[in-house]
Structure formats: C-alpha cells, structure tokens
C-alpha cells in the first residue's frame, strides 16, 4: 500500500518533469534549451554509470570511452552522408558491440583492477583517436558543417529521449529479476554464482546496456557541439561528473542520478559565471561531503524520513 503510494508520487513527478521538458522549447530561449540539453545528457550518462557501477558495484572510471566512440562514430557517419538519426543509432550500436569483448575482458578483474583498467581504456581510446589520423584527423579534431547538422530542437529531443530511456531502463531493471541478480552480484559475487546467478553473463549484459547510452549520447553531443577532438570526448572529467552526480543523488536508485545531475548542473551554472576555476573545486568539496557524511546520497534524506514516518517500519530485528 505504502509502496503503491510511493510509486504514484514517482509517476506523478516523472510525468510533471516530462511535461515541462517536452514543452520547454516553446517558451525557453536557446540558452536555457542548451542548458537543459546538457542536463539531459548528464542524466543519461549518470543513469548509464548507475546501471553498471551502482547496481553491480563494478566502479567504472572509463565510461567516457564509450561516449568518445559514439561521438567519433556519429560524426564520421554524418560526414559519410548518413542522416543524423541513423548516425546516432549506428554510433550507439558500435559502442554496444565494442562493449561485448571489452566487458568479457575487463569484468574478470575485481575491485581496483577493474577501476584502473577502465581508466586505461578511456586513455587508449583517446590515444587511438589522436594517432589514427587517417580516420579521425588526429588532434585537429572533426568539424561538422552546419548544413549537415540537425537543429537544436532535434538535438534537444534526442537528448531528452536518451535521458528518459536511460531512466526507464534503470527503473525497469531495478524492479526486475535482472536487477535483483545484479544487486546480488554487488553484495557477494561468489555467493550469487553459488545460488545460480550466471555472474559473467549478467555483468556483460549490464555493461553492454551501460555502453549503449553513452554511445548514443556521444553521437548527439558531437552534433550539438559540431566539433569534437580526442580530449573533449574521451574526457576523464566527464566520467567524474557522472560519478559525482550519481553518488550525490543516491547510488543504485532510479531518482538519485536525476536529482544529482539536476543539483550539480544547477550549482555549476550558478558558480560557473562567477568563479570558472572555483566551481570545480567546489565540486571536489561537494564530493568529500557526500563521501564522508552522506554515503546514501541526497535521496537517502527522503528515504530516512519516510522510514520514520512508517508506523510498521521493521527496522532490524536483531543486532
């Protein structure tokens, strides 16, 4: 009953936000639309990270590798004459396919080894993009002529679609058997395998899904900015932003990454104008505060209140 109530609030909130997002281009100027577009991108990326790292506990420091691959694939396909939507679609597909071998290789690694391998993977991506000049034009980057590009509205709705589908994907998986198995892997991988969970297949599937979203987002991003170079898309700073947003909002939850992305993007926008360098330092401080004092993220504040309000809350039967 209480669960239903929470679901109703969630759904209502979701529809409200969607309504605002869908109609925003009607009354917002290009500046705000751009801001929202970036917010949608961060929500999509944060949810993708949430899917692999929040649910399975495999901390990825290199999801931007897939973002970069998607961005380059999208830009190059666009130049090759594909319509923008097909370029995005294929960019996402390439990221997904790439995730299969990479997933099998990296997900054998545990804890710090996985984190570092993923960090290395992003760097390998950046280096390949720099050195494979024939394909990627190297450090000069790729400029996309305006006549090739979709309109701001198209990009806006593409990113909105990505943010929405990433969120729905997480919400869907969270409630399903698949999500349960992923969470079991996070808790105790060996025990999960012992009770019949094929951990390899599950991890690789989650990894693939979590590569698909950054792949698509990268392609849309390339079309939105109209220029990419190796360090702007294989950017560790972007990976860190997704992690901070998820953690700040609440890891492994559906609303956490949205909340986190919203608050961090808002703060960034507020601080950016006044203190360009200090805003990132502020992000660092925020990170420390969350790690030390709020390990469950902002969302845990709401949860805690809800728990206390529940008359029949069964909190812990024994020490």
């Amino acid at each position, binding site marked *: 009953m209480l669960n239903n109530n929470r679901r109703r609030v969630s759904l209502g909130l979701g529809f409200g936000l969607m309504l605002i997002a869908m109609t925003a281009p009607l009354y917002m100027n290009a500046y705000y639309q751009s801001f929202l577009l970036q917010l949608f991108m961060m929500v999509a990326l944060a949810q993708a990270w949430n899917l692999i790292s929040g649910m399975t506990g495999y*901390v990825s420091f290199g999801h931007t590798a897939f973002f970069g691959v998607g961005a380059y694939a999208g830009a190059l396909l666009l130049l090759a004459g594909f319509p923008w939507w097909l370029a995005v679609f294929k960019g996402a597909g390439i990221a997904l396919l790439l995730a299969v071998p990479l997933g099998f290789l990296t997900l054998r690694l*545990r804890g*710090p080894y996985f984190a570092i391998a993923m960090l290395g993977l992003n*760097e*390998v991506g950046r*280096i390949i993009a720099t050195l494979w000049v024939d394909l990627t034009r190297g450090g000069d980057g790729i400029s996309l002529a305006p006549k090739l590009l979709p309109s701001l509205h198209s990009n806006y709705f593409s990113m909105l679609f990505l943010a929405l589908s990433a969120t729905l994907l997480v919400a869907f998986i969270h409630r399903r058997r698949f999500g349960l198995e992923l969470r079991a892997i996070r808790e105790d991988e060996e025990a999960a395998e012992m009770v019949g969970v094929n951990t390899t297949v599950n991890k690789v599937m989650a990894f693939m899904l979590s590569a698909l979203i950054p792949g698509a987002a990268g392609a849309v991003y390339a079309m939105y900015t109209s220029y990419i170079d190796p360090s702007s898309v294989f950017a560790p700073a972007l990976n860190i932003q997704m992690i901070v947003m998820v953690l700040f909002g609440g890891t492994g939850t559906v609303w956490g990454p949205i909340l986190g992305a919203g608050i961090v993007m808002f703060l960034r926008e507020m601080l950016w104008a006044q203190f360009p360098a200090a805003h990132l330092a502020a992000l*660092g401080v925020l*990170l*420390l505060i969350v790690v*030390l004092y709020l390990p469950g993220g902002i969302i845990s504040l709401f949860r805690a209140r809800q728990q206390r309000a529940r008359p029949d809350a069964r909190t812990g039967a024994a020490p």
Partner: protein
Amino acid sequence: MELLDPAILLQLLISGLLAGALYALLACGLNLVFGVMRVINLAHAELMLVGAFSAYLLYRFFGLHPVFSLVIVVPAVFFFGYYLQRVLIERVVGQPLLSSLLATYGVSIILVNIGLLLFSADYKSVPAMQGSILFGEIAISKPRAVAGLISVALTLAIYFFLERAHLGKAVRAVAEQPQVAAICGIDVRRIRMLTFGMAAAMAAAAGVMLAMIYSFSPISGADFIQKSFAIIIIGGMGNFAGALYGGLLLGVVESYVAGFSSSQWAEAVAYLLLVAVLLIRPTGLKGTAYVK
C-alpha cells in the same frame, strides 16, 4: 640516423632509466599507500605537483636551486600528508573502494583547481640547471642525471627504511595484518598517518625533480597518475619493490619507443602495457603481496 648504433641504444637506455627512476619514486608512494591501507590515492599526482610548484616558487622568488628546495618541500608535504590522513583518508580506510577513490578524487579536484586559480593553466619550468655530461658519444643532460640519481637514492632509502628500520617493520606489519599489529601494541592509526605522510613526501620529491626537467601545469597530474597506475599494475599492487621495477621498465620502454617512432606513441606505451598486463595476468605481474 643509424638506429641500431650501440651508442644510441645505450643513450636511450640511460635516459629511459633516469626517467624511470622518477616514475618509480612516484609510483612507490602510490603503492605504499595501497599496500598499507588498500586506498588508491587519486590525488597522488597532485601531491607531486605541490612539490613541483613549491620548487617553482622557491626558485622564482628566492633563487633556490631545486636540489636544495627538497630540504624544505619534502618535510612540508610530509606533514601535509600526515594531517590529510588524519582528517580525511583515515575515515575511508576499510570502506568500500568507491569511497576512498572518490574522497581522494575530491582532494585531487580541489588541488588542481586551487593550482589553476593561483598559477593559471600555463606551463611553468625551473631552468636551474643546463648542459650535458659527455661520456664519449653519449650525452646525458645534467638535470636529468641529477633528478634520476636523487630519485633512485630516495626510493632505495625508503625501501631500506621499510625493510630494516623498526618503524618500517611496523608499517609492513600494518600492511599485512592490521588487527594483529594493533594487538601487538602498534598504533595503527599513527602508522597510517606516517605512511601517507611518507608517500606524499615521495610524491613531492618526485615533483621537485620533475620541475628540473619538464615543464608542468596544474593539469599535468592526469598523465602521471595514469603512468603510476600502469606501473603499479605491472609491478603488482601493494608491492613496493614491484613499483620500482615497473617504473624503470616503463621509463626504458617509453624511451625506446620515443627514439624509434614518435613521442606520441611513447605516451601510449603506459596504457598499452597496462591493458596488456591486465589481460594476461589479472592480478599484475607480481601478485598482491606487499614487498617480495
């Protein structure tokens, strides 16, 4: 240029070893922290830059040669690390990996951006020393030789401290069996503070050496932390001596690759080695044991 000329090969080997010594000094500190408290310090390269910028300031305003500024910078950063451990890192020891990664990442972002505010993103250098030493056909730049030799000396000094000194043995005891160490009367918290202080001091010393030979900016840390990761994976996480070998190996391989192809490919070497090692031996070449 005759590539297989023995003099050139030797030249590349020596400059590789000298650069590798600096990497080793940096990576040993990172590995020491990981070995003792299972924390991956993402701010390690920024601690190095604290050393580099301190050397820069001391040279610029007081004309102090970097070799002498070591005497001031290393103890100062030691205490910075010592207290950073006390107020922050200690609280994430024993927590899930993500907590410590993020806490140290937070420190890293803060330091980088303070650096940007103070020094901007322009590259700085400390041209305190010039010229080369000639051994027949082989020329070695003086600053590189000095930096390399001091790095080796410091790394070995810490190594023997851990191996021989009473306090060093306590550090190893905490690394291997923290509970047992605590029962044996070792103040585990204090040892961790000492460890982090030492690691920070090693990073800062590497930074001072770096300032002599390279130009650097507040955002240079990223390259070095990545290289350090490659080194500790190659050498075995938590393995102090392994990081020493790994550092030298990376320096030499980079030097040869730069000599035979381009410096851009040399940049890639660390990651390719890293990925290759992880694929072949998921726990690194030397296992996870601390020392030996």
